[in-house]
């Protein structure tokens, strides 16, 4: 097989989700009788995709380490609530956003510490943290949503730099940083190593506890950033964790091809995965399928994606982390 063929084959294997996305968009255009492809619709999708994509990138890192973070939606709303309430009470934008990211950092580090030091399975840890974070957010806000945040605060999500929305620029920056982290940095390689074979990684000198804490911390910060941007765009911050958001984030990671057993995967593909999921949601909306069916479709998409990625009948590689939940 010559060089071009080999290259094409590897490229297909690695990035085929983008081809799926393109095909899906074509189908969507047809099904929606052209409504889908209108630039206003596409921009809408991108503006929704940016915050979710950012959070999904964080989740991808966690999945690299063969973990899972179900508390991202909790961190998402916590970031929104912290940033929103600070901005409403007069703080300047930078302070509010940094505080929100700080909250995300703290939550992430807690998650990481519980997983790394106490060896509690990530599923249980993050499930517990989700309850805790959501409860704290609700108590903090007395169950009240935050409305009417100052225009200056919302600017980050609603303004354009020339023809490009600022949100997208932020997304691009995050993606670039993530790519660098995943492929060029030591930490990135250590993340893959932990997910691939924890024991081997430990024996090879990988700083497991440090990297795990860092991974969940990054996930927390990015989830908070996503939540902040989303709340800015909606001009609304609610202290209730929306299960659909969690579904979209996880579905995005899974559809993007990152395997749940960890050790492999691609940050760029997660973006494609998120876009696929949002396109499906968008088409459902346009065509008029009841929003009540949303979670079901997302669940189905997740299952199909996981199944396709694992391959027919191949037993998931049993890593030490996989004993138990």
């Amino acid at each position, binding site marked *: 097989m010559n060089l071009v063929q080999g290259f094409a084959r590897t490229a297909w294997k690695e990035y085929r989700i983008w081809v799926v996305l393109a095909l899906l968009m074509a189908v969507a255009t047809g099904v929606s009788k052209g409504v889908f492809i209108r630039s206003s619709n596409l921009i809408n999708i991108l503006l929704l995709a940016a915050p979710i994509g950012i959070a999904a990138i964080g989740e991808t890192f966690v999945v690299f380490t063969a973990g*899972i973070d179900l508390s991202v939606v909790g961190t998402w709303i916590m970031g929104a609530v912290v940033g929103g309430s600070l901005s409403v009470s007069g703080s300047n934008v930078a302070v509010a956003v940094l505080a929100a990211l700080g909250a995300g950092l703290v939550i992430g580090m807690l998650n990481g510490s*519980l997983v790394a030091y*106490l*060896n*509690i*399975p990530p*599923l*249980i*840890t993050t*499930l*517990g*943290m*989700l*309850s*805790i974070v*959501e*409860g*704290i957010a*609700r*108590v903090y806000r007395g*169950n009240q949503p935050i409305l009417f945040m100052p225009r200056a605060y919302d600017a980050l999500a609603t303004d354009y730099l020339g023809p490009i929305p600022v949100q997208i620029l932020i997304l691009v920056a995050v993606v670039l940083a993530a790519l660098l982290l995943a492929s060029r940095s030591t930490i990135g390689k250590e993340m893959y190593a932990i997910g691939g074979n924890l024991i081997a990684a430990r024996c090879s000198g990988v700083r497991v506890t440090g990297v795990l804490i860092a991974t969940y911390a990054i996930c927390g910060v990015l989830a908070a950033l996503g939540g902040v941007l989303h709340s800015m765009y909606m001009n609304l911050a609610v202290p209730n964790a929306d*299960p659909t958001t969690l*579904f979209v984030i*996880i579905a995005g990671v*899974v559809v993007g091809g990152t395997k*749940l*057993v960890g050790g492999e995967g691609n940050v760029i593909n997660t973006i494609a995965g998120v876009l696929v999921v949002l396109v499906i949601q968008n088409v459902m909306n346009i065509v008029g399928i*009841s929003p*009540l*069916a*949303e*979670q*079901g*479709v*997302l*669940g*189905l998409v*997740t*299952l199909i994606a*996981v*199944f396709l990625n*694992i391959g027919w*009948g*191949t*037993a*998931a590689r049993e890593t030490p982390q*996989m*004993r*138990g*939940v």
Partner: protein
Amino acid sequence: MSTLEMVDHTKKERKANVLIRHLNLVILLLLIVIPSLTNPNFRTIQNLEGFLQSSGILILLAMGEALVLLVAGVDLSVGATIALGSVLLSLSIAGGMNTILAVALTLVAATATGILNGVIVSYLKIPSFITTFGMMGLEVSIALVISGGNRISLPTSSALPALASSSVVGVPYQIWLVIFVVVVGTFFLRHYAIGRHLYAVGSNPSAARLSGVSVPRTLLLAFAGSGLLAGLAATVYTARIVSGDPIAAGNLNLQAIAAAVIGGVSLFGGRGTLVGACIGAIIYQIITNVLNLYGIDPNITEVSGGLIILLAAYANVTGLRDNRT
């Protein structure tokens, strides 16, 4: 139990061992005694009645979750199964179906979702947490779609609510149901091979397979059992709220897992009992009940739920309960 027990312990160590092995019962005892002494509201008949009425659901769910945890899996769809079962049940009864038939239909449907979970986990080899996560979305959507997003009230002539609130010999019907399930379940697991198979698959799937245990079938039965118990819980739930609720609490998943873990069921499989899960559920309910009585903000109760599961998971992971150092 191992032969290590024959090692000579001092009398003090032996006493401590007994205490730790029955830690659950000790905690339960303390939880009953202390609030009774310190809070006059706790020891009223109304409180006890209310408590017995409302704990049936969690106990049933915890037992179902225990079955799945025994095989080193997790079932995140039980809350959704309750929602779906509840909607099915009330729609059937409201549509004129005989109550007994409607209940039977609900149980069959719930078990079917469990079987579906089991099939995906055992034959498609998809990890149980993402399977049940996806199924949760599907079930919620189906419940929402067939109910139109609304609660379905049971007709006033229905016998079901009356059944739920009445008692035999002073003990509510639900508790008799729970006792029945515990007795039958424990007997069944102890005297039929499937019981031992559950423990075998949970502790060491490869060894189990090599010993002739059908691992896929065991997994299937575990998830089916979880579905069946969720169906029973759905029936109790519907009777209690006299309607079908498509958005039944999603928190129940976490609570069920927490209850089972508190009750000694190991997160890594192979260890635990139905009775233990029962006790765990009761402990969890008492804690919630006491917090309620003291007028604590329900959001804080949610936070404490998360903390409890983290604590219980930590105890689980460090093998606190089985004397291993």
